[in-house]
């Protein structure tokens, strides 16, 4: 018996991964012009160096303070959850909120300096071999 044969699709240049925008899209310009813009992405100010950081599913969120009385119940719940670092994905699972709602919630907390966001290590053009080796070493211990 022969397995079914995959037929490669013609290369479709328009499906190439969009380049990372160097300028964060504003809410006004995010949805309209350009297919490369992703309207659901949110860019937030990170507390430490003022650089703009993007929330990823695996950005680690850590509470910087106990929930002040001014926050919403959802924000208070989030702050209690991330007393120890938790990824946005885990917070989304525990709070039962979709990722898009999480980013809005977390952005407010970052702006209020109530949480700290620890950006993920992303795959880069110049790969970090020591990172790959660390992951391999960690997996071997499983």
């Amino acid at each position, binding site marked *: 018996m022969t*397995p079914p044969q*995959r037929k490669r699709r013609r290369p479709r240049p328009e499906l190439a991964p969009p380049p990372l925008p160097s300028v964060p899209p504003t809410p006004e310009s995010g949805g309209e012009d350009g297919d490369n813009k*992703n309207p659901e992405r949110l860019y937030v100010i990170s507390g430490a160096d003022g650089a703009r950081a993007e929330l990823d599913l695996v950005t680690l969120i850590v509470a910087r303070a106990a929930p002040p009385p001014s926050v919403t119940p959802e924000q208070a719940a989030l702050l209690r959850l991330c007393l120890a670092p938790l990824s946005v994905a885990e917070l989304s699972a525990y709070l039962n909120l*979709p990722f898009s709602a999480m980013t809005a919630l977390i952005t407010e907390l970052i702006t209020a300096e109530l949480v700290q966001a*620890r950006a993920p290590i992303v*795959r880069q053009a110049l790969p970090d071999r020591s990172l790959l080796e660390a992951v391999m070493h960690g997996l071997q211990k499983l």
Partner: protein
Amino acid sequence: MDFKNSDTIPGPRTEDHLPHTAQAAVKIVIVGGFGVGKTTMVGSVSEIRPLTTEETMTQAGIGVDDNYGSESKTATTVAMDFGRISITDQLVLYLFGTPGQERFWFLWNGLFEGALGAVVLIDTRRLEVSFDVMGRLEERGVPFVVAVNSFPDAPRYPIEELRTALDLSPEIPIIECDARRRASSRDVLMTLMRFLHSLAMSGALT
């Protein structure tokens, strides 16, 4: 449930807390058709019980789903299961299982961005499901390995026959696995990591 969270929201168990030293996370995506064993694989290697995050169809995906007529009229919600492996006190690995069918590609925007790589999990009874996935990963430049989840009643093909059928270049690893077994799933992840490492060594990783 954690007693310290006296709220209605259940949080992680105390033993599931990451250390405060956790500085950064990396992610690997496991992609395949329904029932191919993605969640099983995530669960077999995860240190936490797999969690589910729901993603709602947003504007970003409408262009894709418009091709599918009636489905675009309602918001689509898709669950993604994920697990976690602590690599060191500073580094955490997350594994996401995501459906491979084209109508779910709206999920991929944030998911594959920055992912170290992917595992395409296939079932030889439904090989076709994985065809578009592999094409899409190639287009996006996401390095991947292919893992054949060996179901007892699935047809078994020699690896090289599969490679030809899947039209995969010789360097892309194809391995058989049993997603239920921790050691087997770990070997799949190790195969991906070794592949990524070889790409890094040859400077071909982009």
